[in-house]
């Protein structure tokens, strides 16, 4: 492979990383918003957030991406490919993530909430000071899995002709005919990105656990 082709693939990898980070940020915001809404005391809030989750889990991210990129312009909004991809991935993976958030919130013993009530904390203080700090470490391992899934999902964006890794690989293959080599390289590139993501998430998990006094447990490498 020649130099320019390497540049092509590295640029693609960089777009992939960007797409992953933007989508992950949106997905995280959606996950917390919807996940909290699903534990609301108001049934209408629970209901609407439930509808959101069912809808976005039930539709494919790819179709959503096509819709945002090809159908929305017909209604007068033209989204750049990167943003259509970010939106589609962020909204779908946010729906999965909200289930993680909800599960983690519910895993905090009710007694913790009651102790916070007994100290007259407001609902918001209970959430921020007591519930979330204990729930967040629980979210980290499943969030890591979702993030890896999201990384793989970014390849869908190649179908919008966004110049991410898979798309650039297609170009490289067309210009060289070296299918095995090109796809071998991007396989390794995806793996390296996933590896880094996992390392970072482990670090965050350890940090989160240390902040709830479980530092010694986190080092054990269980789970």
């Amino acid at each position, binding site marked *: 492979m020649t130099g320019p082709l390497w540049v092509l693939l590295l640029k693609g990898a960089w777009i992939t990383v960007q797409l992953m980070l933007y989508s992950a940020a949106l997905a995280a915001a959606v996950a917390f918003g919807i996940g909290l809404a699903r534990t609301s005391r108001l049934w209408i809030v629970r209901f609407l957030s439930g509808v959101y989750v069912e809808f976005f889990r039930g539709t494919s991210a790819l179709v959503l991406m096509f819709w945002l990129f090809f159908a929305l312009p017909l209604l007068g909004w033209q989204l750049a490919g990167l943003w259509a991809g970010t939106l589609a991935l962020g909204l779908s993976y946010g729906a999965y993530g909200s289930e993680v958030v909800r599960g983690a919130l519910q895993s905090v013993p009710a*007694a*913790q909430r*009651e*102790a*916070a*009530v*007994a*100290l*007259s*904390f*407001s*609902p918001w*203080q209970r959430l921020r*000071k*007591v519930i979330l*700090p*204990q729930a967040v470490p629980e979210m980290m391992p499943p969030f890591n899995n979702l993030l890896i899934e999201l990384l793989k999902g970014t390849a869908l964006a190649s179908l919008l002709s966004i110049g991410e890794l898979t798309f650039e690989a297609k170009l490289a293959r067309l210009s060289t005919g070296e299918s095995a080599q090109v796809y071998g390289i991007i396989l390794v590139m995806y793996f390296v990105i996933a590896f880094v993501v996992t390392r970072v998430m482990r670090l965050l998990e350890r940090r989160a656990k240390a*902040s*709830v*006094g*479980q530092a010694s447990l986190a080092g054990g490498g269980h789970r």
Partner: protein
Amino acid sequence: MSADSSLSKVTVNPAVDGSELIRFDKVTKRFGANTVLDALDFTVSSGKHVTLIGPSGSGKTTILRLLMTLARPDEGTIRVGGEYLTHEERGGRLVPAGEKHVREVRKNIGMVFQQFNLFPNMKVMRNITEAPVHVLGLSADEAEERARGLLELVGLTEHADKFPTQLSGGQQQRVAIARALAMRPQVLLLDEVTSALDPELVAGVLDVLRDIARTTDITMLCVTHEMNFARDISDDVLMFDAGRVIESGPPEKIFNDPDQERTRQFLSAVL
């Protein structure tokens, strides 16, 4: 256990003259078809130490949870210091209390739980100071000073910087007592606070509570199976059965010469 110097820092809210502080009026609480409290009436005078005894399932925990506003009665009213816990007076009528009202009256009440329920994400010091700072509006310095006085009272001065998981059950429970007292409630609710502890750790916690009972004017409502402790600290003992107070009186009377056969049976089973 406690140096007397530290006790000046654990004064509680002034008593509302020696009169009644807690009043249950015809309080009924049901869980489904199970009527746990049945038109329950009782009062507790300010500064008194009252022990609730009775068989398992008789509703002792339920009473404390109602007082802590962790549960609401189905019927009847509860007042603490003349204020309705569960209701608000609006235009001369009683309406169910809103969240804001409940949060305000709940500040007068503190609770210590069987399982301690310390916040595992906060060190001991922050467990104690967090609510005084963020609920009562104390400065960080004030709250820390108050917390140090209380840690001295419960004999844990050197553990301020540890996480709860690094403490024994008995130590955790003493932190929980300090945490409740840091809010300077008028009423302290204690629900079987030693029954989750290894036997050798029980005495330390009971000693702390004896100290508090002796040296403060806080009103205590206490559920316990430690009958010697109940005898020591109680002004009054209430015997519950089937959702009602079937007998009440000073500990000497209840423990030595109860009027009710049911009380006699219960005591002979637990003593």
